[in-house]
């Protein structure tokens, strides 16, 4: 019987953190700690003396963890990202999914793999949701700009809404640009001229 793995998840967003923690806990014996605030990150991690640290690939505070990989860092045991041997492929999968993992040197690969498989899957879902959210936001923003441009055209040229949109679309097609880009250019230009 081996001691449960100690895992630290660095994640500011509570909902995301909970989702990841639940998934990891369901996988079996491990203790999971979440660190939300990243100031004094290295010290906070050292308190838990974890076997594995998981952090979002896009988190700029990742560079703070790099300090821990130096032997003279605040952790007694050096931490290394899984890069060699059996873990090599996992590293690639993890980067694709958007999770970086720091693993205590010497931890057996068969103990790391199940945890990382779960982390990778979970981060992939989270990342997908985030991309979708960003897409939705962008679409909404574009909708607003297109509506404003339509309004301007209607007013300036005395067209109805459908005609105004057709004009926008035709201009975009002629110039090989997106409708939203043409609309944005119009709104910006009229802002400059007004």
């Amino acid at each position, binding site marked *: 019987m081996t001691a449960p793995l100690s895992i630290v998840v660095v994640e500011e967003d509570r909902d995301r953190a909970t989702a990841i923690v639940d998934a990891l806990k369901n996988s079996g014996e491990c203790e999971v700690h979440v660190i939300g605030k990243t*100031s004094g990150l290295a010290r906070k991690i050292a308190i838990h003396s974890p076997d594995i640290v998981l952090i979002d690939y896009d988190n700029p*505070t990742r*560079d*703070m963890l790099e300090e821990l*990989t130096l032997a003279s860092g605040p952790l007694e045991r050096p931490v290394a990202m899984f*890069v060699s041997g059996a873990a090599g492929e996992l590293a690639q999968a993890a980067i694709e999914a958007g999770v970086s993992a720091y693993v205590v040197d010497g931890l057996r690969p068969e103990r790391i793999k199940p945890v990382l498989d779960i982390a990778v899957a979970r981060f992939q879902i989270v990342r997908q949701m985030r991309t979708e959210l960003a897409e939705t936001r962008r679409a909404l923003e574009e909708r607003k700009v297109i509506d404003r441009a339509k309004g301007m055209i209607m007013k300036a040229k005395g067209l109805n809404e459908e005609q105004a949109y057709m004009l926008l679309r035709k201009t975009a097609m002629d110039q090989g640009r997106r409708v939203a880009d043409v609309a944005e250019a119009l709104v910006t230009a009229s802002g400059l001229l007004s």
Partner: protein
Amino acid sequence: MKTLSVSVAYMPLVDALPLIAAQELGFAEAEGIALDLIAAPSWSSVRDMLSFGRVDAAHLLSPMPVAMALGLGSVTTPLAAVSVLSVNGNIIGVSRAVEERLRAHGYGFDFRDAALAADALAASIDGPLTIGVPFPFSMHVELLHYWIESTGLAKQGFEVRTVPPPLMAQALEDGTINAFCVGEPWGSVAVENGVGALLLPGNAIWSFAPEKVLAVRTNWAETEPELLTRMMRAVWQGGRWAARPESRTAAAEMLSRPEYLGVPAEVIDRALTGRFIISSRGEQRKTDGHVEFFDGAANFPWRSQAQWIGSRLAKRFDLDQKESQSTAAGIFRSDLFRAALQNTGADIPGASQKLEGAIRHPTAVASLKGGLILQPDTFFDTCIFEPLDEN
């Protein structure tokens, strides 16, 4: 001709300019390539993207590929630094509290004399400085150690802490650090936010320090020599454009765009001109050669520059000097630089090594076209670094 895409990871900093200019101004297109520039959230991710093959090339801190070759840090994929993207460009600054103590001590913030600044600091503070840097393997860290170790500041001791540059001003404000060494625009941002004052430009410590390099995986350089040559030529052109005084306004505007740095052009302009506002009192200081993208063969990856880095790392991490320097020398690929840039109008030095710190005045040296003038590369303590013989 079909346009080939080369993906390049970079950190959104002023010194990413040669890469951005190469793409935006059509130098890449002229070489039949497109640079797919990918902004990264941290140096670790730039390194990982390059090491694990997500990108073909990267904007890296010059000590990173050397440290990796020496087995330091968590990734050790063999990399090649094929050119130097920028020389100098770092700024050392202090918190408002330290600034006040220095002023009380009569220090005039000359923004020039590194020995004087160290003495003033040593006399004004009564504990070790905690200094924020962007990454454990960076010219920032090497310059700090070099500076502090040979001045009166060494007695006080100091601690170096990694803080991502965009968070540097915040860390200064909340007291996590009381000094920093960072690339622009982040030093000026600390001044703008009223949380710090600028003490010294990096070139006050070493007047010709290789700051960022263009790096690729060594095996990619071997399997894609044609693509590598085209990219290197395009980026070299980008650096030449970036160095011209008449490019500055356009360069600052380009970098300020939200897809690149998203910082006001006026703040970026300070790094490009070397004219800084150093404190909340609005004091101005000018430094020459704050960031150099081209002149004096700035892009040439001198093997001796890598050896200096290797030697410093060996000293700090207790590694064998001779072995470390020899490994380091092989990372700065002056051979690949020569091969890629011959017949382009580039004036390339005849030698691949020099005594670092020995050039006190602009000096004409033997070169491909015979017109090369090297710029001063002195250290503040006037020491000269003689690289160990490689045989």
